[in-house]
């Protein structure tokens, strides 16, 4: 026994070098692939640039100040930010309600479950750019089948210009986004539901709990970690969404900026503006967006953990 303890303490003392050696390859890869690009974006944002390759001077946080004090950023950044939040909120509500509802229904289904899981997940496999293009065709007032069907059913008043009106463009964007990604929460909730021992529900049943109360007080609390994961992923997706808004409204968030989001603003500044210091300002915007997403995700994680601890 004594020898065993001695051996164990040897293992604890020796590893310093070994641990470093073991971690080094992975860390090097992590640093080269993740840390370096992220740090360089932060670095770029602290300089003034002339064109893409010529750096003029270190200008501290001036690029960040520009974002909060100068046109068009003071006007377009809050507008785009609110649209991101709306997309996140809308998607969150629909994915966590509809997604969970579908998962629960599928869980009861038995044999056909796999088939429906695959069907719900299919749009998830298609590029958002293609999804956006297809829905643009489907919703086209001139050529699209959606409005043609509505008119055929005598519902002309509902056959509106879905992507041409500011009031409908953003809700349509959210719905299509949910349509595309719903399969993912369905799968996650499905797996989590499968992992809940049926005995728990049965015990509640013996105690006289009806279906809704069993779901509310047994199943739902046990799903908290998954709800948290889905919410955080939705938050990240909602804040950095680009492809679908781009496919729908182009780089300007048509119509009249109604679908403008932060990534589109970044795209316009960095790739389309032709401004001399485009690299500096767009890097500042990217850094802000990264910090916000990181902060939001960490906060979300903390809230979920607190909720989990309260329940356990």
């Amino acid at each position, binding site marked *: 026994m004594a020898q065993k303890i001695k051996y164990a303490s040897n293992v604890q003392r020796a590893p310093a070098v070994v641990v470093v050696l073991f971690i080094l390859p992975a860390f090097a890869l992590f640093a080269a692939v993740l840390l370096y690009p992220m740090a360089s974006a932060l670095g770029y944002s602290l300089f003034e640039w002339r064109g893409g390759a010529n750096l003029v001077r270190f200008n501290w946080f001036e690029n960040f100040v520009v974002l909060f004090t100068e046109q*068009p950023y003071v006007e377009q950044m809050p507008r785009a930010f609110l649209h991101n939040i709306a997309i996140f909120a809308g998607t969150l509500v629909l994915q966590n309600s509809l997604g969970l509802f579908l998962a629960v229904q599928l869980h009861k289904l038995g044999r056909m479950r796999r088939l429906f899981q695959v069907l719900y997940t299919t749009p998830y496999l298609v590029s958002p750019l293609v999804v956006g293009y297809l829905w643009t065709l489907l919703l086209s007032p001139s050529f699209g089948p959606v409005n043609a069907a509505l008119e055929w059913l005598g519902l002309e008043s509902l056959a509106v210009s879905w992507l041409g009106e500011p009031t409908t463009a953003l809700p349509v964007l959210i719905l299509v986004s949910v349509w595309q990604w719903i399969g993912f929460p369905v799968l996650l909730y499905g797996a989590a539901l499968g992992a809940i021992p049926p005995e728990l529900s049965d015990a509640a049943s013996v105690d006289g709990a009806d279906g809704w109360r069993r779901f509310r007080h047994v199943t739902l609390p046990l799903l908290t970690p998954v709800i948290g994961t889905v919410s955080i992923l939705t938050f990240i997706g909602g804040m950095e969404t680009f492809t679908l808004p781009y496919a729908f409204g182009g780089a300007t968030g048509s119509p009249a900026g109604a679908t403008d989001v932060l990534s589109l603003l970044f795209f316009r500044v960095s790739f389309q503006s032709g401004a001399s210091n485009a690299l500096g300002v767009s890097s500042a915007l990217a850094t802000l967006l990264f910090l916000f997403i990181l902060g939001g995700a960490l906060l979300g994680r903390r809230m979920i953990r607190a909720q989990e601890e309260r329940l356990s």
Partner: protein
Amino acid sequence: MFATACGGGSGASANEARVTVWTWSNEAMNAFKKAGIIEAFERAHPGIHVEVVAQLDKNYETLLTTGLAGSESPDIVALRSYGVLSSFADSGSIVPLDDVVKDWTGFSKPALAGAKGKADGKLYAVPQGIQTAQVYYNKKIFAELGLGVPTSWDEFIAAAQKIKDSGVAPVVIPGSVAAQISLAAEVFGNARRGAGDFEQAFIEGKKTLADPDNVAAVGLMEQIKPYLVDNVTSVTLDEAVTLFATGRAAMFPSGAWQVTTFANLGAEIDYGTFDMPVNADWPAKAVTVSYADGGWALAKRSTHPKEAAVLLNWLAGAEFANLYANAMGTIPARDGVTLKNAQLAEMYKRYQSKPSTYLGAAYLRYGTPSGTDLMGEQVQKIWLGQTTSDRAAKSVQTGVDAWFRPADFQHG
């Protein structure tokens, strides 16, 4: 990259050089290879080989930034005119050509304006081509209604009314795409604003977009609202082309590139084109809206700068312009070209007699927000009933005030 790898290396003898050209366009690469352009050059310049590579990356400019900084830099690169070109000039990755190219006399002023670096006013590219913007009209619909090409704005509106009464949409504009709306607004409003005189006053800082003449020009977009296709703010470029090509819309303000699009559709569309006619009391006569459409620039890190200069001088000549414009179906940036396509030949002729610069493309795309994006958004707001032409014009000016300085364009 493979092209430079064998440039001057094992594949070529000591006094032979391979000049590598990068472009974003597959059509351009094919024109060089299949329309005898490379052959014509190499025949006249033994010892210099040309390799044209199409970099079909979505972000061609990003790829160029890396490519031009690397050890295997291309020698000559195609660049989009104005802002993009100017930003590469700023970065120092391309070099001024004022003294490299010997003869610039054949090029028009709008073409050269698109090839200048904003910071120093030097020429950084040999202009590739010109885009003109005009109104396409369906000849069959016009004939059936007994309409001729309008000779004044009032006649244009009267014709639009007659077309509308017949059940066809008079005008289609790709109203979901900011850049397309801005281009259409330019076709309608350039002359109403005052064309070249306004341009001059604008870059001298004597007039702004809030000027009453420009407000009136933007107002034309308000006037045509009743004559636009339904749900115009949802119309994409593809839909606009289809609506016009199928006769569901009678007129379509757009760029010269549509000639190729219509030809590729395979549909028999009997169409003609005209420049927007003006009323007698407007400040300018009818003009052809035009803007520079790309140029050939010399990389600073070119490994064969001497041979590349020879090629650039040839690219600036009439022989190349003839071959290239006819192969690509574009309007050449210089004179002395005979276009085989009748539609394009007509546009080229009109352009040579009365060109007027597309203000948005030439001056308002050097910063954020771009003037053309703003114009697109503001016109959408006009159509959606959210603003007036007066507020829209002022709003575009306020937007570009963030970065636009007329003095930047004053280089002798």
